[in-house]
């Protein structure tokens, strides 16, 4: 057991969603077709956007906590 601080939930969720979105995006690059393109547009892209949004919320909260905002 070490003394590392717990990883914020938002950041963990953001990273998990990003990995999922990236894996879905990879299917388009490996095999381009109608299904992979539609999946990229309607699954991978929202997942990546959500990951960015959650990361932005985490950064915003972090800055507020440090009284930098």
């Amino acid at each position, binding site marked *: 057991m*070490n003394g*590392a*601080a*717990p*990883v*914020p939930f938002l*950041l963990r969720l*953001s*990273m998990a969603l*990003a*990995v999922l*979105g*990236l*894996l879905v*995006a*990879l299917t*388009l*690059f*490996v*095999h*381009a*077709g*109608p*299904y*992979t*393109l*539609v999946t*990229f*547009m309607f699954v*991978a*892209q929202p997942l*990546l956007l959500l*990951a*960015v949004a959650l*990361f932005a919320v985490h*950064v915003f909260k*972090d800055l507020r906590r440090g009284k930098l905002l």
Partner: protein
Amino acid sequence: MSLVGALPLMAAPAPGEGTDLALPPPHGWIGTTDEWARGFGIAFVLLAILLLVIGWLRLRRVGLTGPLKEVLILPLVVLPAMIVFLGYSYGIESSKSITACGSCHVMAPYLADLQDPASEGLAAVHYKNRYIQEHHCYTCHTDYGMFGTIQAKMEGMGHVRRHLTGDYTLPLKIAHPYPNSRCLACHGASQKFLKSEGHPKEDMPKLLSGENSCIDCHGPAHTPAKQAASR
């Protein structure tokens, strides 16, 4: 092998693409923009996943440090933005290929007819004589200009939905009457067309308005083998 060294390998054509090319690419060929978009796309996805895994392990081991926060901007913001751009660049362009159109099983007879040298269907004649250089389905089934492309993509998504839900009947029928403007975009200014006895000037208004269809005299557009009644 370094990442940079591996890029040309990843930029190779995707499976099913370019298989109808008769000649090998010329010496010094470094690939098309799409092939490079594909290569960079794969490289960026793998790099982002690698950084996220390393970041996750560091987080668990030493917690959220300042430098780690800065590093995470790369796989969570910068690389995904580039991947989305490359994905659209590569995906939209790839969706114009005949392989993409033929990937739905209901289109298989049309693709087989297109590539059949013995077929006298209009599409097959254009294909075997290479009257159209590439994107054979897309070129004839898309209106010209920016909105033609957008409309084609919207209709394409509708086709995917219909195929997934089974919301279609066989044999397939074109949704709208085929517009002459798609034929005339190439043929309209050709001397062969303009000076042909089969296209008298007094008939031009009817051709331009669509009252007379090019397909009526020059069809059929496709002669696919009979499709199975069941799916």
